[in-house]
């Protein structure tokens, strides 16, 4: 006797309804099955999106009881000419570039090493994967503790290996170090993600290709660059796509780590947007900001996906 929820649901359904359900055409079943999901997504995603676009042309403030006026493109104009917006875009770009850079580098290297299939590699892979499944807010909060001068583990380890006095630098307080402090934690968390995808790519390469190359007396170095890298590239690009979208949205980890400081150096766009929307309560302005961000991420992702498809076709 099977006890799936659907099964029980079916048994609990009144016979008349069940008969009707049973007699449904494929097409009706298709809509019946897809319908609820579409409705829910429309209600929680599309309707709000349209609402956001509408609000973006107004001066609405969600905490104020006053008449809402349509002010045309003024919000957009102000956002795009505001130096703060560009500073947060720059901070985001720095964060995006370097996290992806390090994660691809380390992730690929790790995957390459794990693919040597040494004894116990599964166990160590699982351990390496752990950080990325954990709550970024909770982990980010704890990293502020690890980063504390004097008492923090991170500073102490740095002192141990480099001799730099642990209390002489503050990872999240210094203007030079803070942008790197967030890169380090994100890299720590998400390198395994790139690693897993690369590993899948490496494992998808059939042994026969290497055997053929060996017969052609291609050097290992040459095999690596002409076989391994091109075969893994589509996987790697996919990993970059995912990390790119995720880190463009980045909020929880960085907010907990630095709160956007010092100054505005680590104020990523999401943090900036949160301040506009839920601290200043400039709802109209923030809506326009949200639309701009959405168009940016959607546009960049579409271009990127096209490039990815080209690589795949090759």
């Amino acid at each position, binding site marked *: 006797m*099977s*006890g*799936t*929820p659907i099964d029980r649901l079916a048994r609990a359904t009144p016979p008349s309804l069940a008969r009707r359900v049973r007699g449904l055409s494929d097409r009706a079943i298709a809509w019946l099955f897809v319908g609820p999901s579409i409705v829910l997504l429309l209600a929680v995603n599309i309707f709000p999106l349209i609402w956001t676009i509408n609000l973006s042309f107004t*001066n609405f403030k*969600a*905490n*104020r*009881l006053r008449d809402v006026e349509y002010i045309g493109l003024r919000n957009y104009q102000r956002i795009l000419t505001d130096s*703060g917006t560009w500073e947060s875009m720059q901070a985001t770009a720095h964060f995006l570039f370097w996290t992806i850079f390090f994660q691809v580098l380390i992730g690929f290297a790790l995957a390459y090493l794990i693919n040597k299939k040494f004894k116990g590699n599964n166990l160590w892979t699982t351990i390496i994967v752990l950080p990325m499944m954990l709550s970024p807010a909770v982990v980010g909060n704890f990293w502020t503790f690890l980063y*504390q*001068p*004097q008492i923090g583990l991170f500073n102490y380890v740095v002192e141990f290996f480099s001799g730099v006095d642990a*209390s*002489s*630098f*503050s990872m*999240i*307080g*210094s*203007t030079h170090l803070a942008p790197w402090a967030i890169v380090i934690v994100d890299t720590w968390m998400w390198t395994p993600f790139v690693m897993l995808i690369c590993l899948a790519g490496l494992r998808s390469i059939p042994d026969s290709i290497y055997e053929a190359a060996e017969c052609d007396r291609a050097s290992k170095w040459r095999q690596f660059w002409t076989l391994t890298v091109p075969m893994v590239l589509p996987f790697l690009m996919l990993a970059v796509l995912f990390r790119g979208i995720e880190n463009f949205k980045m909020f929880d980890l960085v907010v907990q780590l*630095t*709160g*956007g*400081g*010092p*100054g*505005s*150096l680590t*104020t990523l766009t999401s943090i900036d947007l949160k*301040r506009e929307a*839920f*601290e*200043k*309560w*400039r709802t109209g302005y923030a809506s326009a900001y949200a639309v701009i961000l959405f168009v940016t991420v959607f546009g960049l992702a579409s271009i990127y996906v096209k490039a990815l498809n080209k690589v795949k076709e090759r």
Partner: protein
Amino acid sequence: MKVSKLLMATALTAVTTAGATTASADELTLCWAAWDPANALVELSKDFESQSGIKMNFEFVPWPNFADRMLNELNSGGKLCDLLIGDSQWIGGAAENGNYVKLNDFFAQEGISMDDFIPATVTGYAEWPKGTPNYWALPAYADVVGWTYRKDWFERPELQTEFKEKYGYDLGIPSSLEHLKDIAEFFQGREIDGNTVYGAAIYTERGSEGITMGVTNALYNYGFEYQNPNKPYDLEGYVNSPGAVAGLEFYKELYDVGAPPGSSNWYMSEDIDAYKSGQVALQMNFAFIWPGVNADPNVGGDHTGYFANPPGPAGQFAQLGGQGISVVANTDNMEGALAYIKWFAQGDVQARWTDMGGASAMRSVVEAPGFADAQPFNQAFLDSMAIVKDFWAEPSYASLLLPMQGRVHEYVIAGQGTAQEALDGLVQDWIEVFEDEGLR
């Protein structure tokens, strides 16, 4: 298929428990910041519970999240809080947006007079618009930024001699901000009893309101004004006056020469920790911490002295802290909430409030003979309360605070640009806010 059974079961629980948590009529929830005075209020409120039969619930939120959480709660029309001890700067917004209940009629009916409270606290915690007799709160907790110093270190003869030689005057309670900086510099990096200590723990926090609450103590005293006293919302030349620039430069210098390294994101609790662990000679903090410092086994008693924010070239002011208690308009238990305020406004409850670790703003309590000497910090508290100034309490307060946090932190902590540029930028930011509000 155990998993799906489990899922089914929890989904059912979820549906049944959702929405089942509405408070009953004989309960009240009071929201405040999570800090020592809040614990004292829980103790104090037991008296109200036994008198009224109303059960008190408390929701205390840590300071760095307090404004965020509570303003979000008010703006979302939430029903979490019946009573809110909200920060002084929220009052304009909460009043104009209908989040708080106006208390004038209630005060009149119950014979509660605002004349019974320290005038600065009535203006700061209860009135909106400022300077008019429209009351949205009862002054609940009087607080102000002041300083604690390590009296035991200051009294060491060898340090006194060395200080005198170096600066030409006696080491003691600083008579000006300039002297305070000298003292901080003097202690910075010094070996005391085998530990390296630093000058002054000051407010530098970025995320909420920390650095603003700190830097204003320097700005006010060097000549910063929020606006033209004769023409509201006229900022140019007041916010960025030469005096204001000098004040901001002073704060940066104090940070550079006298603050512990790495103290780039410090607010109340970090300052307390640094002071209590014997890392610093001076500590800027709200007066609420003083009872705790006085009772501390390591730095309490004779080890510590207290003084009001020292004057600068343009006068002597101190940043107002503290809160009034308001009734949230959304409450389901208006009667109970008002009963609580009535109970809280009684003279003997207020006296007990101060005894238990609160800080009454009632004149009969603080002007009582013997109050000034009852605790070693009371005189400094009275001196400080006499010179308070507050940040904007406009409805757009958060929009005004955020650029200030950013501009000041960028200059003082990150060292980018000049003080003039920071304040010029701030003027532009604020003008924009006021233009949005239609006030300019």
